[in-house]
């Protein structure tokens, strides 16, 4: 789904004193897409969002919105409404007054303001709370007010800064579908900052993963999940087994826990070069017996088990102390002796591995 970029970050750098929050960011955000920016705290994702909103000014580089540079435009002239992590609802205004706020600031007449705000309350299914105090609303209701407040000006783009982080798990999922539905319906661009994989992967068309101010990978959920490009991404997603070692120049990787075949994708690293190879936990297998030659394997001991619904994840420790994980359905696991301390083989097909950069 390619269309002309709505937002362009052109070599954007943001420094706070000596600290570099965002390093040379180049990024295009398309019209009508749901883009998630993901990373752990301090990675620069929120700063990126705030620069787009006009709340922080880039130190270097240029940001364009619909083709026009907006670096010097203050936030109140930008039409880039944001939904805040804290929601930042005005506690001294009631629900409908909160929603009307942006219209009032734009000089919309009282009558029209009221009608448009009421429309949005209805749309968000919170009409009955119109005259309620913010303090009297539940978390989910507040979320809807915050959305309505930002969307009432009918912007082309909506910025969301971890809006769901304060909700409980059940409500989170519901709000996710509300957000997704809303984005489809309105057809506008959502830029969604989060530290949660499940939020990003379940809602976004494209995901940007950032670390220490640098974009590590951009792609669809599938692309990133299946093929993390960098070691950081792999570690961050936490769903892969990672093996680091040196290439022998003949398609083999020498690691402290054994020699493995490198993937045959034509980019075989030269001899002696440090190389990192990953394999997804869902593509890894467990066995009591040594697997066949079509597999590479590691000898490891079980250290723990975690249920994740239909599947379970087994955590193991290799001989050098590095951690491994394997995700299997319960039927498969039932056939295995799953006890802490139990030695097992962790194996995978070499063609299901791939290399990541070490940056």
């Amino acid at each position, binding site marked *: 789904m390619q269309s002309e970029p709505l937002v362009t970050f052109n070599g954007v750098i943001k420094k706070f004193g000596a600290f570099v929050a965002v390093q040379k960011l180049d990024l295009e955000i398309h019209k009508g897409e749901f883009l998630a920016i993901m990373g752990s705290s301090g990675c620069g994702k929120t700063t990126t969002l705030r620069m787009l909103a006009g709340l922080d000014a880039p130190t270097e580089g240029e940001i364009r919105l619909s083709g026009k540079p907006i670096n010097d435009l203050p936030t109140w002239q930008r039409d880039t409404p944001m939904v805040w992590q804290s929601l930042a609802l005005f*506690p*001294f*205004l*009631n629900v409908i007054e909160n929603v009307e706020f942006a219209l009032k600031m734009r000089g919309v007449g009282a009558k029209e303001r009221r009608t448009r705000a009421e429309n949005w309350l209805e749309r968000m299914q919170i009409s009955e709370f119109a005259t309620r*105090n913010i303090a009297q609303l539940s978390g989910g209701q507040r979320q809807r007010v915050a959305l309505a407040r930002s969307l009432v000006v009918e912007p082309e783009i909506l910025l969301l800064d971890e809006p769901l982080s304060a909700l409980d798990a059940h409500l989170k999922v519901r709000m996710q579908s509300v957000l997704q539905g809303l984005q489809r319906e309105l057809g506008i661009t959502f830029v969604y900052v989060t530290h949660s994989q499940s939020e990003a992967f379940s809602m976004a068309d494209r995901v940007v993963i950032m670390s220490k101010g640098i974009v590590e990978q951009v792609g669809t959920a599938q692309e990133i999940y299946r093929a993390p490009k960098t070691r950081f991404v792999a570690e961050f997603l936490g769903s892969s087994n990672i093996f680091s070692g040196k290439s022998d120049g003949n398609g083999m990787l020498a690691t402290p826990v054994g020699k493995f075949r490198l993937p045959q994708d034509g980019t075989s690293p030269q001899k002696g070069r440090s190389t990192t190879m990953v394999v997804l936990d869902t593509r890894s297998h467990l066995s009591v017996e040594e697997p066949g030659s079509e597999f590479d394997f590691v000898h490891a001991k079980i250290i723990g088990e975690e249920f994740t619904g239909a599947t379970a994840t087994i955590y193991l420790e290799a001989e050098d102390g590095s951690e491994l994980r394997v995700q299997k359905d319960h039927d498969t696991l039932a056939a295995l002796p799953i006890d802490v301390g139990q030695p097992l083989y962790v194996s995978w097909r070499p063609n299901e591995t791939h290399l990541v950069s070490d940056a």
Partner: protein
Amino acid sequence: MTKSNILQSGLTRRALLATGAATLATPMFSRRAFAAPTELTMLAWYGHAEPDIVAEFEAENNVKFVPKYYTGGDNMLGLISQSPVGTFDVILSDAEYVQALQQAGYVEELTASDYEIDDYYPEFQNFPGNWSDGKLFSLVTRFGFLGVAYNTDALTEAEASTYNVFWDEKLKGKVGHFDWHLPNLGQISQLNGNANPYDIDAAAWQAVKDKTMSLRPQIGGFFDYGGTFSSLNDGQMLAFAGIGDWITGVLEKNGAKVRSAIPEEGGLQWSECFSIGKGSAKAELAKKWIQYITSAKGQAKSAQMAAYPALIPNQKGWDVLNVENPAEAKRQGMTKDAGNVIEMIRAGRIKNRQWPVQQSLEEWNDFWSEYKGS
């Protein structure tokens, strides 16, 4: 709910404040509104612009006095020097400060013929300090004596007839000082036998200092005007140096058992004089006031001032007082009988309180603060 609520309560509070202010201020404004009298400012000791003294004059001349009461001569000088010229129309000052006022150019010259100085006792017609180079700058209006103030339950009149009573063992910690060096040190100087208590040589001055220091263990405190009143009244202090009837007279009237005596070593005299402030825009009215308060009628009023009674220099004023309030005239010794206050002055028992002649004022003052701190 919220916003309107805040606004509502805000309005109520604001309204409340405003109404409150208006209600409280109403009497003031309304009073000003219909009368609109001329305001005449007076810098004086407390009491000189109270209704018992000024009401009649105010009514007759459609004047409203705006007083600033000071707490001492230096305070008065400070207030004048730190206020714009012309702030004060009438200035009441202790006699020893009049010269400072005149030298600093704070007061206007008076025309002697405007006032009934001839009715004054001769001693007061050429009162020291009132005149400078043959020009009149202020006019003495009332005076009083300073001696031993004492609690009549604690001391007999005979005991109080000497300053030595302050050293009495039974008064330990019960002797108070009016907190000003001039009257206190003057009295000690009198006790030391100096004919002119303020014109003493270095040796005599040293003797006064030594004598004063020996009194320190007896002292219970150093009091301002108000403190002197209350500590004498409630028996906190049983004897007081540096004051006289101007304090005890008021307390007596309120039923307190206190009195002042002029001891055998002699007493001091304080005198208050009226002047017209430099640059006063209402000098004519100010003159009228001084004429009033130095006239026989005004003098009789002044003698009976509620805040503190005083002796008056106008002979005709004595006559009026003896008709109006013979008891008070008798109490204060302003009758034609023998031993009246003028005779006491003539007998040389009373000396004017004044600034030290051979030492600087600073020296006396520094000693006083050392004495207080010791």
